[in-house]
């Protein structure tokens, strides 16, 4: 075996990364052993099937990945801050922008949203868990192992370097001979299977497990957005699965799907990638719309304006999202007819999105607005996202796009859409639902400090990129000459990036500070909420609701508080059926990781063995006869009494 291909040579940065990964791993292992936490870790987290804990793990992983992707971003901004910088060489710059894109979209935005989904959806619909709790654990561990597989690529073998869209023929074996794009196909495949399972799980959960009385049109807006998102996941991800499988065959087994010889077609990759890729944008943005709808309604003390039109605009967006993909490659060579068609469908998406913007504005109108941290993020989102949307319409015009295509203008546009559309939303949701999970709020003063740092620095970072794009700076260039005149604006952008980093560090400091010093919340309803998740204790007991609530109106908790409509019929507390923990999803994840790693390096014997392992594990899991356990009525009553006294359980 050739050990050389595992090594990454050169740069002190890589050695630094290796040392820090090794030190962090040793630190975690020693810490776990020293504090005797191995059993705790296994019992409480690695084997859990509880949707709340899985959600928390998703969010923790997403925060970690946010910092990994953020460091990538800082390196890129530093490298381009001045002309002829020598901080990174071209190859490492390629690897850094590729992993930045992959990590931020697939291993930060998606899991953050899926994490919030996991924590909140069952609570919001009055359920005790998701429909398939064990499958939910499988989803998480597949996502996690996929993410880890991509992360180790930086120090073992080299990262993918053909852009996050991995266009062929550049990503083919001929032009990218390192293992980087093998990592790409396998890491995305493994975590993509996890996402697909999540999609199925949440569709069933929302359609089948709502509290009695909660008709579809009485669901909270976040639940609606998540339902539609998961429908998109289920229909878009299979395309990625197929495309990645074909890519893997091309790179590992010498097939010719996307090559330029022997009847292969390189452009088909771009086509399939964006058939998935464009709906993917809506997968991360629709739940954000849901989060904002909840926050705006709560902090304006009004019900959401235009509920029905909100739902229908999301349905229309979900259909249209499958009809616009060719706008990502207007310049590839198709005729004017094709470009005009996709131009029109693309602009059509702006209409339902505009409807949503106006609905939010009308919800704010004459509301009693309180400016909490989540509300600030929401209010900042509306104008910034609109700038992103308007530049999107500019890019949608095919003939004009020949000028903008692959310039920094595009980079500025999608950061203006995705950062307010996804990142602000998950941070707002994080602040908003934090007391639900942990029983205390994050500090408002620190929260607002980090908000202003983030929102101002965001504009300082990305607004100059519009002009750089119009001046002709192309994306993904690792350096430029002084004569080009790109220097000053790039330096400004770097200054903004430093400010963003400070904002995110303040956010982390806020979590630390609040954990130590914030007073525990005793009301279970710190924001005067409107929906069912605030109708149970914070933090909630394992069974969520001692009695399943009965819903009569849209904002069930709000009308319960305002009009004294009882949420809980005088039903007696009965025994509660709960799923039991299992370690099999974690073990399956580990075997998938080994399978992925062996395939990346074409180690056939371990690949075959772990492939058999996966099948054996799946068979083993489908014959599982564990049907869960019951919490007795007495135990529930005792827990409820304790929770009412404000004790933790």
């Amino acid at each position, binding site marked *: 075996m050739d050990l050389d291909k595992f090594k990454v040579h050169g740069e002190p940065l890589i050695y630094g990364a290796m040392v820090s990964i090794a030190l962090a791993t040793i630190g975690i292992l020693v810490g776990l052993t020293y504090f005797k936490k191995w059993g705790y870790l296994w019992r409480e987290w690695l084997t859990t099937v509880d949707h709340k804990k899985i959600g928390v793990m998703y969010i923790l992983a997403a925060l970690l990945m946010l910092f990994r992707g953020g460091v990538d971003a800082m390196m890129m901004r530093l490298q381009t801050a001045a002309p002829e910088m020598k901080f990174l060489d071209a190859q490492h710059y390629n690897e850094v922008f590729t992993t930045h894109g992959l990590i931020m979209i697939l291993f930060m935005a998606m899991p953050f949203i899926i994490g919030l989904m996991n924590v909140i959806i069952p609570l919001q619909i009055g359920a005790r868990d998701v429909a398939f709790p064990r499958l939910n654990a499988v989803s998480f561990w597949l996502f996690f192992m996929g993410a880890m597989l991509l992360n180790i690529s930086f120090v073992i073998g080299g990262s993918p370097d053909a852009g996050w869209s991995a266009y062929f023929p550049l990503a083919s074996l001929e032009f990218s001979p390192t293992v980087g794009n093998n990592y790409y196909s396998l890491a995305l495949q493994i975590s993509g299977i996890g996402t697909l399972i999540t999609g199925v799980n949440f569709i069933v959960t929302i*359609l089948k497990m709502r509290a009695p009385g909660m008709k579809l049109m009485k669901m909270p807006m976040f639940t609606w957005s998540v339902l539609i998102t998961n429908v998109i996941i289920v229909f878009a991800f299979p*395309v990625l699965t197929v495309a990645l499988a074909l890519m893997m065959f091309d790179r590992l087994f010498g097939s010719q799907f996307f090559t330029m010889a022997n009847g292969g077609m390189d452009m*088909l990759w771009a*086509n399939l990638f964006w*058939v998935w890729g464009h709906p993917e944008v809506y997968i991360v943005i629709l739940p954000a719309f849901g989060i904002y709808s909840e926050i705006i309604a709560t902090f304006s003390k009004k019900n959401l304006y235009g509920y029905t039109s909100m739902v229908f605009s999301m349905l229309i967006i979900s259909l249209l999202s*499958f009809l616009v993909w060719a706008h990502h490659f207007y310049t590839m060579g*198709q005729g*004017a*007819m094709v470009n005009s068609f996709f131009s029109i469908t693309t602009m059509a998406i702006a209409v339902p999105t505009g409807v949503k913007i106006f609905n939010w504005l009308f919800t704010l109108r004459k509301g009693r607005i309180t400016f909490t941290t989540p509300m600030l993020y929401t209010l900042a989102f509306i104008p910034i996202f609109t700038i992103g949307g308007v530049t999107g319409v500019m890019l949608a015009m095919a003939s004009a796009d020949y000028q903008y295509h692959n310039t920094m203008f595009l980079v500025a546009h999608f950061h203006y859409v995705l950062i307010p559309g996804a990142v602000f939303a998950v941070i707002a949701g994080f602040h908003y639902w934090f007391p639900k999970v942990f029983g205390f709020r994050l500090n408002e003063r620190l929260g607002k400090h980090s908000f202003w740092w983030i929102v101002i620095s965001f504009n300082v970072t990305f607004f100059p990129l519009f002009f750089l794009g119009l001046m002709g700076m192309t994306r993904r260039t690792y350096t430029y000459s002084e004569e080009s005149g790109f220097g000053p604006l790039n330096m400004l952008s770097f200054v903004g990036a430093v400010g963003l980093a400070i904002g995110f560090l303040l956010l982390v400091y806020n979590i630390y500070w609040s954990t130590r010093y914030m007073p525990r919340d005793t009301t279970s309803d710190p924001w005067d909420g409107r929906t069912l998740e605030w109708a149970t204790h914070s933090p909630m007991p394992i069974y969520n609701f001692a009695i399943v609530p009965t819903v009569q109106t849209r904002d069930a908790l709000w009308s319960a508080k305002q009009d004294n409509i009882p949420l809980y019929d005088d039903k007696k507390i009965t025994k509660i059926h709960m799923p039991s923990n299992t370690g099999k999803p974690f073990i399956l994840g580990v075997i998938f990781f080994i399978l992925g790693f062996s395939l990346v390096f074409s180690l056939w014997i371990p690949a075959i063995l772990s492939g058999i392992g996966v099948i054996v594990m799946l068979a083993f899991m489908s014959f599982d006869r564990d049907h869960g356990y019951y919490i007795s009525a007495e135990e529930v009553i005792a827990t409820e009494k304790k929770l009412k006294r404000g004790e933790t359980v």
Partner: protein
Amino acid sequence: MMKQLFPIRHVMGYLASLVLSAAALIVIYGDLSSGANMAVLLITALIQASLQLFVFMHIGESADSKKELYINIAYALFVGLVTIFGTLFIFVWGWYS
């Protein structure tokens, strides 16, 4: 008991899907016209898809969620057809020439 251990319906469905997959190989190893090849692929694919839906995905079973089921199938058809015909539109019918 025997029925539980040996679900005849599923085993037959599995065998049928293997046979259908093998039958489609005629396209490679046979010597048919391209029209006949397409017909073979279309027919085997249609039977294969309905086999999966009825035998393994229990489409005929639940009566209470028929509406959701049909909406889902319609959506799936929409996405599938859009992908196929959209790709043909981009690369064949609408290609710049």
